[in-house]
């Protein structure tokens, strides 16, 4: 390496002091986290390393790399220092190379120092099992991911910084768009930059997310080369062009006019397309409590619903001991997938298909109206603690609807499902009161059944007015701190009831119900027969003798929205084994679940979610 290059590297390394300060700040944050906000004994290797927070650490390091690039190149160019360097008897490539070497050295050394610091922190940890997590191979993985992420950021940064702020905007979009859409389109997930920090497991052995590293590694490398070439050959020309564009009002106006036209086209025309294609006429009907909007074709069904809507709503208010003085807007034009209705603050949206069956429409309206009343009575505090209250919220709405409308067949099926789910999944109250954990392991929709039965137990143990009073109790208890169980203990104490008494009643009900429910709801056993074609072999065991619909559904992970799940169906008699094929795996790792429609037209019973990876 020649002397000039070494001197240039030294000079550029000095310009990297702010990057060093960022590394020191991260170390400081760790110190505060593990010495002030927690005891250092909690600083286990799993907690401080990429094993638990890889995505976050990776994103932070990518940003550090980006920062390093912006510190080295544009600042010097704008200060005129770079032009001075161009005048020296040194090749331009050497000047750019010196900067990149300096940046690489600083981010790698900084990442190394942080990785050692993290290891040092774990020296305070006092837990034998936690200590077993540490191994030098996982330390090396941690260092590789953090340092590698910095280098990826640096590679992207060399190109992005050529375009100054525009580069930042494009980079932000490149991070933001896959982040937002990754959940909706799972295959986009690997383009997320934070996925560099995801640790994959080959069995118990942690390893890099190779797909993401191949993608971002090669793109960052290409960006660094293109960026370097641009800085060497086009820096002055780009600057001159940029200034010309910035000063020419004609160019600006033309550019923005084009953009405006395009934006208007996208904004105005696209949303109109469904309306253009639809020739439906919209009607309104207002009652004492509801303002309904619906399609003209649904008029007879809506009139039938309107006849009983106010009466049902008054009965709902009586049952809950509540009052409601605002008009509820009911949108009956929705074409929803996956639900029959949703509700919020004085608003209901019902799936249009529910209008086909008058009793179903009443059931949905009463269910959703109960949500409206509960939301208003609790002043939205139930939804603020939704993880602990979802089962109650849905169960209450079902309970009110069945108490008022009867619908015995549906209610019986729901109660069979509740009893079987409670027993087969070995549930406890703590499972119900944590909807996030519940949805990760079980069928999230079963909270309608379980909640309805639990609210029934609440009414039996503490009085028929207890469910309505519990809404008020919850709204008071939700203002205070405490976990889910504390919330429920507190809320029921507010209405003079014990959580234990309700659970005791509920357990008694399950014991009574279970024998008959077990005779109706079959068990579904199965396994993945082929991972390549994603085929399942499934056996139905028990239940009523007639053939029943068997369902297999898959999802990427518990956070994946239901719109991204896939579903396959078949039919089987008792003891029969069937094969359901999907054709292709949704993603590399996924979850699957078997279900059975044990009563026609009612909610299916699903077994637990299972994990699968090749």
């Amino acid at each position, binding site marked *: 390496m020649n002397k000039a290059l070494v001197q240039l590297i030294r000079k550029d390394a000095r310009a990297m002091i702010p990057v060093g300060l960022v590394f020191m700040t991260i170390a400081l944050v760790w110190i505060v986290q593990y010495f002030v906000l927690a005891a250092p004994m909690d600083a286990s290797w799993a907690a401080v390393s990429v094993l638990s927070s890889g995505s976050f650490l990776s994103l932070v390091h990518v940003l550090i790399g980006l920062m390093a690039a912006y510190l080295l190149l544009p600042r010097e160019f704008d200060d005129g220092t770079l032009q001075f360097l161009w005048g020296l008897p040194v090749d331009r490539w050497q000047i750019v190379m010196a900067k990149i070497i300096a940046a690489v050295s600083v981010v790698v050394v900084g990442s190394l120092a942080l990785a050692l610091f993290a290891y040092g922190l774990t020296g305070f940890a006092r837990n034998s099992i936690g200590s077993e997590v540490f191994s030098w191979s996982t330390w090396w993985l941690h260092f590789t991911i953090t340092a590698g992420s910095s280098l990826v950021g640096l590679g992207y940064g060399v190109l992005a910084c050529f375009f100054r702020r525009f580069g930042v905007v494009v980079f932000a979009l490149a991070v933001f768009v896959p982040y937002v859409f990754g959940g909706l389109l799972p295959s986009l997930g690997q383009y997320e930059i934070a996925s560099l920090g995801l640790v994959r497991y080959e069995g118990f052995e942690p390893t890099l997310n190779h797909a993401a590293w191949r993608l971002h590694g090669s793109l960052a490398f290409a960006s660094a080369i293109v960026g370097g070439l641009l800085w060497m050959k086009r820096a002055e020309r780009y600057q001159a062009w940029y200034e010309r564009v910035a000063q020419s009002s004609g160019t600006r106006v033309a550019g923005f006019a084009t953009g405006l036209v395009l934006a208007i086209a*996208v904004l105005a025309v696209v949303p109109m397309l469904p309306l253009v294609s639809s020739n439906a006429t919209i009607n309104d009907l207002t009652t004492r409590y509801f303002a309904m909007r619906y399609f003209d074709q649904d008029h007879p069904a809506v009139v039938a619903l309107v006849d009983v809507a106010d009466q049902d709503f008054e009965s709902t208010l009586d049952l809950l001991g509540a009052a409601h003085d605002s*008009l509820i807007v009911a949108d009956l034009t929705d074409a929803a997938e996956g639900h029959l209705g949703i509700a919020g603050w004085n608003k209901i*949206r019902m799936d249009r298909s529910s209008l086909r069956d008058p009793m179903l429409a009443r059931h949905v309206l009463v269910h959703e109206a109960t949500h409206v009343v509960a939301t208003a009575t609790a002043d939205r505090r139930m939804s603020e603690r939704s993880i602990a209250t979802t089962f109650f919220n849905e169960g209450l709405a079902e309970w009110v609807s069945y108490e008022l409308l009867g619908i015995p067949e549906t209610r019986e099926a729901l109660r069979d499902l509740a009893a079987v789910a409670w027993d087969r999944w070995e549930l406890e109250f703590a499972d119900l009161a944590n909807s996030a954990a519940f949805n990760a392991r079980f069928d999230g929709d079963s909270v309608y059944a379980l909640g309805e039965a639990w609210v029934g137990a609440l009414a039996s143990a503490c009085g028929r007015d207890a469910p309505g009073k519990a809404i008020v109790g919850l709204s008071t208890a939700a203002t205070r701190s405490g976990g889910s*169980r504390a919330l429920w203990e507190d809320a029921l104490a507010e209405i003079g009831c014990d959580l234990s008494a309700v659970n005791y009643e509920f*357990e008694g009900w399950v014991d009574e119900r279970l024998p008959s429910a077990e005779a109706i709801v079959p068990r579904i056993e199965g396994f993945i027969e082929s991972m390549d074609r994603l085929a399942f072999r499934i056996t139905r065991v028990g239940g009523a003798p007639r053939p029943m619909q068997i369902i297999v559904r898959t999802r990427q992970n518990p956070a994946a929205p239901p*719109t991204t799940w896939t579903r396959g169906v078949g039919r089987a008699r008792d003891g029969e084994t069937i094969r359901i094929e999907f054709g292709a795996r949704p993603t590399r790792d996924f979850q699957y679940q078997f279900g059975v429609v044990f009563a026609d037209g009612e909610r299916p019973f699903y077994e637990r979610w299972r994990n699968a990876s090749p």
Partner: protein
Amino acid sequence: MVTKELRQHGFVFVGLALAAFAVYYVQSQVLNLTGGVLSDLDSVPLFTRTVLIAIALFLAYRMIVLDYFQRTRQFVEALPQTFGAFEAVKFVLGFVVLLVIAFAVWLFAVIDASQSEPIGARFVAIMLTRLVLFTLFVWSVAFAFGMLGRWRVAFLLGTVVLVRLLDSMTGFEMHRFGPFALLDPSTFPFERSHFPWVAVFETFVCTVISGALGFGIALAREGSFMETLSRPMLRRERMAVFVVLGVVGGAWLLSNPRPDAPPVRFQSDKVLKNAAANVEILYLDDRLIDRANALMRYLDPRMRSFIETTGIDGNLSARVSLAANLEGDEFQTGPIDYDDGVVIGANFMARDFAHREMGEYLFHQLLLAGTSERAIQEERHWALDGFAQFWALDDGLAPTYDPLVLQALVARDRVGLTRDSLRRWDVVASAVGEMPAMALATTGWRYLAQTHGEEALGNVAKSLFSRRAHDDVRDWFDALANPVSAAFEAEGIDFDTFVREWDGWLDTFVEREPYRGLLTELAGLKVDIAPLKLATGGSGIWFSGAAGDPLHPLLDCRALHLPTSPVPGPVVRQAMTDEEIIPDGATFSHLVENVYGTGTRILAAVECEHPLLGQPLRYGATAFVMP
């Protein structure tokens, strides 16, 4: 001046409007894709609470901060203008630009929403009141921050952090306050009847304050104050800002904590209460009063002496509630309140309910509450486990045979009894099972009482269990300064010697019958656990075991399995699925079929309960990945 501003920033206004529409479009499409959208107006609060705020901050930067950086203002001041007119024009123009953007987005959403819901005049008036006032507030805040020049970022960050802390750590509910309530996504698209007057008033006051602050800074000392602010901050100024923000924020947090949930109080009249022993038992059913009384008779003397001996807070109470879903030997912890006590769920109506086991669990949880969980730090964990069981025992060790001693001997055989094994208690408990480990620890307390007397035992317990955790670095220093050995040494007992002698004491049981025969029988059992691919195509877990001699006919073995995280942690026995294994002479085997998917990480073990052992002993604990 308006013309000057438009000429200077018109390009930015149009660009921002364009970008705003594009982002709004993306936001609304994403919202629709995620499902569960209740109204097409849902996207308005989402837009105004994110994009509009960002636009306001950018506008303030372009229209205010840059003017001072570039000294444009000095030129404008030389013009014959009314004092303050320059700032007023900027304020009004910025507000109009923001309002136009917000209004256009809202209008677009309203047109969209009108297809599916009626949009009446009152609803429009309510929404517009919210929107206009919120926009005015956002702009007045951005305007004020803009006037802070180079200090604005520090103040902005400080304010954001403070607001977040207030919301998360105190009883102050930010989303129900003024401007945040106006654009609350749960009400903005839906409230058609009531004007949010309180929020309007609060927002108005905040707007006036921030606007006045902005103008005050701009006009103070004829503008020279703002010029000072626009100069780079000195290091000491930066420090002062952070110190002030830290002190004000800290003081507020400490003075306004979120109220805690009140301690649990049983509401039913079916409760047995014993004030002297601080025990309450909720029995729920009149038929169970006798069982509740029996439990109270067991707990009463123990609770009284427990508080006195350990020196834990005497106000800590034990509340036991009937939990019918549990097995007789299974217990649940309700809320633990460090100042009030614990609530335990237990099924004391079950046939196999045992007072002693419930006592172990209760005293364990009480010690956790009394020490704010300091007692569970690993080097003290054995002492916690052992003391809880020791205190729950009815009498001393049975003279000829005691299952606890057998459990302790089995555990000791597997993991040894040294200072190091006591320090690595979590690993020990995972390897042999919680109950044998607990029995081993109990023999330590038993030996201490036997050799050094009840007083020494009480003093060691007080030393270990009378201090609370701080949850910060003080715990680490405290652990260094007060190791377990110090509690023994304070009584004149060398801890290493004590552990050695305790181990020696256990040796004396090994050669005695029936311990010797039972130990040989239990040690002869070899367990093998492995995942396998089934001929049918599925996968399973194969449990098998063999002993030299035929297994005891009453030996009860269960296959345990649990999907685990790749990062190991303590395993809770209750979380594991268990299935009965039927022995066949000197061997047994069991297959778990098609329960777990390919690639799932599994922890499996076999637990066998010998009729003379009293508690299950864990064999062959192993982790693997399903094929």
